[in-house]
């Protein structure tokens, strides 16, 4: 290992004098990244301190954004919401990760698979499903509760802060699960076994060894779950607004309503940006080089902790979580997607495939949104994978100075919340000379920027598995760098690129928080149409579209896991 690293470094140095494509790649990449990442951020910052009529600069936008009582409420709401989601995700995700990686719990494979399904399920579909399941008056849970107990009131009310926290956590706990199980898998269980042999009890081992080992990952997972909730738009818009409160993201969206206050929105977005930057720096420090779950090898698996009779109890507990997160919501969506009219209830006569025909073939906006979404996801994923593949390659092989700067730029959007990025993009591209607003290309720019970090991380992880000696061998045999790259690296690197492509394609299919500020009637995407249909109360159509989206997503994940195996979403 050490030899390989030294080889990379010296190899890089000895090659530096030669002319080849690398500097051109660097320049081009730097220019693209500057346009994608630096420009919208700069414009956002300028917008925040600008007087709306363009006559000068002032702090008026900040005073308006943070001075008014009605805009202060959402800040408190967002803090409560995100913190609670972070804590709940840890309480669920971390123990599940331990059970799956360190014990002989029954049904570990099922738990892992369904957790991935929860990971790729957009929370706005979870929210829709839970309106059906846990609406205070007509939700299935409450109807059953009243039928069984004879009570008048409601057992649960999804239109509330606690309802919102609950639904969001069901789809953010997998983040903690993935990071924690990666950390636990990557660290050998030898220490735990040694402690056991030395006579420590199970709890003592947990407290003194396992927990400290996993702690950075758990805290890192908390931060990511916290941030995800903080910048989420869909679930809060669907559950908080009917419950008569705003969070920061829905407030930013409301600033765009007529008469739009884009400048105030930009000022209002600053805390989101700041918090995201600070927390992600903290998270990086904490997790050190381990970073994302895609990185990191599999250590020798030690003998798992025997749970005895608790094997099945533990499985039942995990199963209950996944029933709430996957089983019941998917059932509710499928039921609504197959309903003739929602008001007709749960009877067998109330079944039809009409809603699918309607959203795929008959209803213009959904049909064009499906086409737009597939086009956007494909183009974004392809460009992100190619661009980040190139940058990860030059950065890892240290072909040129300044490659690390490119890597930094590529990772920077991680700290730019989607809805915040969109404010900058809207300002930058909604008037000539750069008029992208009104086309799907402004949404493309948003997606590409937003998913650069995912693509870079995946490509970076993949390139590290391609040994530089192989390339050197090809060069020794007379191939120039491009040929060596093409004939040696690309085939080996290919699986990594495909993995990066999928990791961008999947979230692009469901992106809502950037798209919601950038779409027009001729540039709608599936998530936006789902949200619009929800606003009109058309649950049947929402559910049919949702089922299509989930079906495509799960099919792609299954195919990827079958063919890419451990290289894709490794947990």
């Amino acid at each position: 290992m050490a030899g390989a690293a030294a080889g990379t470094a010296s190899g890089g140095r000895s090659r530096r004098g030669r002319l080849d494509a690398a500097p051109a790649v660097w320049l081009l990449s730097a220019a693209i990244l500057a346009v994608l990442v630096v420009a919208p951020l700069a414009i956002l910052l300028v917008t925040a301190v600008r007087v709306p009529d363009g006559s000068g600069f002032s702090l008026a936008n900040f005073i308006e954004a943070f001075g008014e009582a009605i805009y202060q409420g959402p800040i408190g709401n967002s803090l409560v919401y995100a913190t609670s989601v972070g804590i709940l995700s840890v309480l669920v995700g971390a123990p599940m990760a331990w059970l799956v990686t360190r014990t002989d719990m029954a049904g570990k494979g099922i738990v892992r698979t369904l957790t991935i399904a929860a990971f790729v399920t957009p929370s706005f579909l979870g929210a829709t499903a839970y309106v059906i399941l846990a609406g205070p008056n007509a939700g299935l849970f409450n109807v059953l509760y009243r039928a069984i107990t004879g009570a008048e009131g409601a057992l649960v009310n999804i239109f509330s802060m606690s309802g919102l926290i609950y639904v969001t956590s069901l789809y953010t706990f997998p983040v903690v699960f993935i990071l924690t199980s990666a950390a636990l898998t990557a660290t050998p269980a030898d220490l735990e076994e040694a402690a056991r042999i030395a006579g420590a009890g199970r709890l003592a081992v947990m407290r003194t060894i396992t927990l400290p080992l996993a702690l950075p990952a758990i805290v890192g997972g908390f931060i990511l779950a916290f941030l995800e909730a903080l910048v989420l738009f869909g679930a809060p818009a669907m559950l908080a607004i009917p419950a008569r409160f705003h969070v920061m993201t829905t407030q930013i969206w409301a600033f765009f309503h007529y008469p739009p206050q884009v400048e105030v929105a930009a000022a209002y977005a600053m805390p989101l940006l700041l918090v995201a930057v600070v927390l992600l720096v903290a998270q990086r420090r904490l997790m050190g080089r381990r970073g994302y779950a895609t990185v990191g090898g599999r250590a020798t698996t030690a003998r798992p902790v025997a749970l005895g009779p608790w094997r099945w109890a533990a499985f039942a507990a995990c199963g209950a979580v996944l029933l709430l997160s996957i089983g019941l919501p998917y059932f509710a969506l499928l039921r609504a997607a197959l309903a003739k009219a929602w008001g007709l209830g749960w009877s067998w006569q109330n079944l039809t495939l009409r809603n699918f025909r309607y959203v795929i073939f008959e209803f213009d906006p959904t049909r064009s949104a499906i086409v737009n979404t597939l086009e956007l996801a494909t183009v974004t994923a392809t460009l992100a994978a190619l661009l980040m593949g190139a940058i990860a390659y030059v950065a890892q092989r240290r072909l040129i100075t300044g490659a690390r700067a490119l890597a930094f730029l590529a990772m920077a959007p991680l700290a730019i919340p989607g809805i915040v990025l969109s404010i900058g993009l809207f300002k930058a591209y909604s008037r000539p000379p750069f008029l992208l607003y009104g086309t799907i290309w402004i949404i493309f720019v948003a997606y590409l920027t937003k998913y650069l970090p995912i693509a870079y991380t995946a490509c970076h992880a993949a390139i590290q598995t391609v040994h530089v000696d192989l390339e050197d061998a090809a060069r020794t045999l007379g191939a120039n760098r491009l040929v060596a790259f093409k004939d040696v690296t690309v085939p080996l690197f290919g699986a990594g690129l495909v993995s990066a492509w999928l990791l961008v394609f999947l979230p692009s299919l469901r992106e809502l928080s950037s798209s919601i500020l950038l779409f027009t009637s001729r540039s709608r995407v599936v998530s936006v149409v789902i949200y619009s249909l929800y606003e009109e109360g058309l649950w049947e159509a929402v559910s049919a579209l949702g089922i299509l989206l989930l079906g495509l997503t799960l099919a792609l994940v299954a195919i990827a896991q079958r063919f890419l195996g451990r290289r894709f979403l490794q947990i």
Partner: protein
Amino acid sequence: MTYRMLWGFLAGLALALGLLARAEAADPAVMDAAKKEGKVVWYSSLGLSVAQKVCDAFNKKALGITCELARDGSQRVFQKVMQEAGANLAIADVVHTSDISHFLEFQQKNMLMRYLPAGADKFRADFRDKDGLYTILRGTPYVIGYNTQKVSAADAPKTWKDLADAKWKGKLVHAHPGYSGVVMTGIIGLLPVMGGWDYYAALAKNNPLVVQSAEDPPMKLSGGEAWVGATGEYNLYREIKKGNPVQIVFPAEGAPFVTSANAILAKAPHPNAAKVFTDYLFDKDAQQILADDGLYVPNEAVTYPKDKQPLKELKLIKVDPEEMQKRDEEVKKKFRELFGV
């Protein structure tokens, strides 16, 4: 087939086509230009299912012009039109919302094309703009609805005041004036009658489920998620026709009459198609689709469903367009204060 027969056939065909063309539009030059434009983009706040029906019926005429529907809430339609105008984008041709103040705003910004649909001189007088810049496409009273399985006719609210009764706490649904023009008009119509914002403060105390579209309360009522609520009459009427357990109440204080205007934008990218489409929207066929859906329309050639009461038998509250424009911002602000969103 002899030449003579062929010529005879062709002459007959030409005659038939000529007659057809005359039936389609008064001005063949407009129709020709419209066909070249090929489509018309309609930004509309008309309920999705009926708006789609109107568009589909237009497309079925096979005029060589496609109706492209962009349905959204009135305020969103307005927001998009203004946002696109600000970016110098001409996407929408014909605009239709239920907040009449939007059309005053368009007018003051010179954003409308002067166009009256064919036959407009015969429309109900109260459905026309005196300057001929927009025409009311449809009207509906803003009323109360309730779920008949949860609430008996005796218990159902009879007045707007009843709706604010504490017994509806947690059972009430209300749509958003920042989305729906029907609701915006309803609130502005009710404020003077109900003695100002105190009425809405009382309503807010019932913890209503705040949805967005005026289309949504009827669905919340029919599914039993809410028991009582306020919305447009036509939105409720449609749910009743579907066999859902919903009933309409015309409150004793009166029902604000919501009029929804339609106009062509001055910068319409398909101006001729827009004219053809506007003529169509107001012709008997399209107006009949609206009337069947429970709406009141300007074209008096339609026949209303038997269970619809004639407008003149209803106690309506007239809402002044200038009053709408004056109070739009205030309503959004006060609603936010009282209802939290």
